[in-house]
């Protein structure tokens, strides 16, 4: 087995990303979709940190990861607020139900 190095962390990030993609693509529940987005962001973040540790570039990987965490928190807050508002409007958080602008 290869000694654990950069590719292993990248692979972990890729698999996290894929599971997040699956969640976002298949879930009907809006909260679940948001959870999938968090998984996507985490997958990307693992890549940032791995490149920061192993990559030959400069040291901005961790800084970007912090930005991603900040924006993920902001996204989750606004997203969940929207989910609550949608729940009040449609009485459901099924993402297929929110189609009142669909001509």
């Amino acid at each position, binding site marked *: 087995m290869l000694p654990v190095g950069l590719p292993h962390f990248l692979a*972990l990030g890729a698999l996290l990303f894929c599971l997040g*993609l699956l969640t976002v693509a298949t*879930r009907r529940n809006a909260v679940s979709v948001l959870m999938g987005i*968090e998984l996507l962001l*985490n997958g990307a*973040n693992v890549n940032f*940190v791995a490149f920061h540790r192993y990559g030959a570039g400069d040291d901005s990987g961790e800084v970007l990861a912090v930005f991603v965490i900040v924006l993920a*928190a902001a996204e989750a807050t606004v997203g969940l607020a929207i989910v609550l508002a949608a729940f009040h409007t449609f009485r459901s958080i099924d993402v297929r139900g929110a189609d009142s602008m669909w001509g």
Partner: protein
Amino acid sequence: MPQRSPASEYLANIQETVRSLWQGLSITLSHVLRRPITTQYPDRTERPVRDTLPVRYRGFLEVDTAHCGGCKLCERSCPIGCIRVEVERNAANPKQLVISRFDIDYARCMFCGLCVEPCPTGAIRHTREFEGSQRRVENLVLRWADPTRPFPAYRAVKGADPPPRAPSGSLVRAKLAAWPGTRPARRTCRPRPSGTSQPHRPREAPEETRMRRKGKLGVALAASLIGFLGLLAERVRAGQAPHASLPAGPSALRDLLFYGLALLTLAGAAAVALSRNIVHSALGLLLALLGTASIYALLSADFLAIAQVLVYVGGVLVLILFAVMLTSRIAETKVSNASLGVPAGMALVLATAPVLLFAAFATPWATRPPPAPGPTTRAIGNAFLTRWLLPFEVASLVLLATLVGAVVVARKEVKRDEPSDPRS
């Protein structure tokens, strides 16, 4: 009574506090390990509640139109007039009576049974059905006769057997199922495997598998927590600081740790993607986020690991759990976390994953030997205040906008010029 010194009294107080705390908490803890005794109605009851009612229970009235002679005795006997029967002559065959209307208003019916007593043929009778909620009270009228296709009145024929009776409750159940806006008359506990001869078999097996699955999830969560804490502790012990420890070179222990943590992370992510219960999904997300934090720690990103735990686990996950509790019927797993288009999603993932994995393993990355592990907080702080100053400020603006935006979006609108609706 001997005078106690203040110090011993103080210590005695502390001891008393700890003992009473333990007494209270031990009761709570003992309940953590017990099975819940609440039964969720109506999904999780072992058999339909109507089957547990007495045989002569006076539930919804039902009319067997094959036996109704159109005598209107029930209409006349009803003390509140909730039955309405109209009988006409058949236009094609004037000798035959047809019943063009037989309405029962279940909103007014008081289930007294006075209409059942005089019925000469037993056409109208009580059932054990009682579940029929409606949004509008006008919808609580069941029409047993179709005005466009009236049914003929029953006449006893000498020497012939009366038509067979439908099983009690089957007619009204069919009507209730077709009721506008009702849920299907009953979603039973769970589909039983066909061919089992004991219909009332206690549901030991599924319950146990569920408990076992919960146990597994709990074990995984605990393992991830222990792994994370152990990682931190190991670092503290080895290097006197949480950051200077794990050997930088390849080592079997480090590899093992990576694979274990990666497995936990992916298990959590898989629970998010595939679990049927949204609470299990949220717990899986917790596992994935903790696992990611441990991976950060493994990568010597101490600040990020802590930030991940604080922001994600402490903030985002709690928000998500709140949203779950506020919005979905979480007891109904089918409702709470349904999926659609799973084959398409799987195809998408199966198209994406190999590409990403191939890129990860086949690209000759320009790597350098990892720098000696050290505290990263200073470097991050420097970067924020020099090179990344503008994005840093923009991020703070974004957070402010998020704060305001979330409040505006989630707030319920208060209309001051209208009398407020007490129900809202």
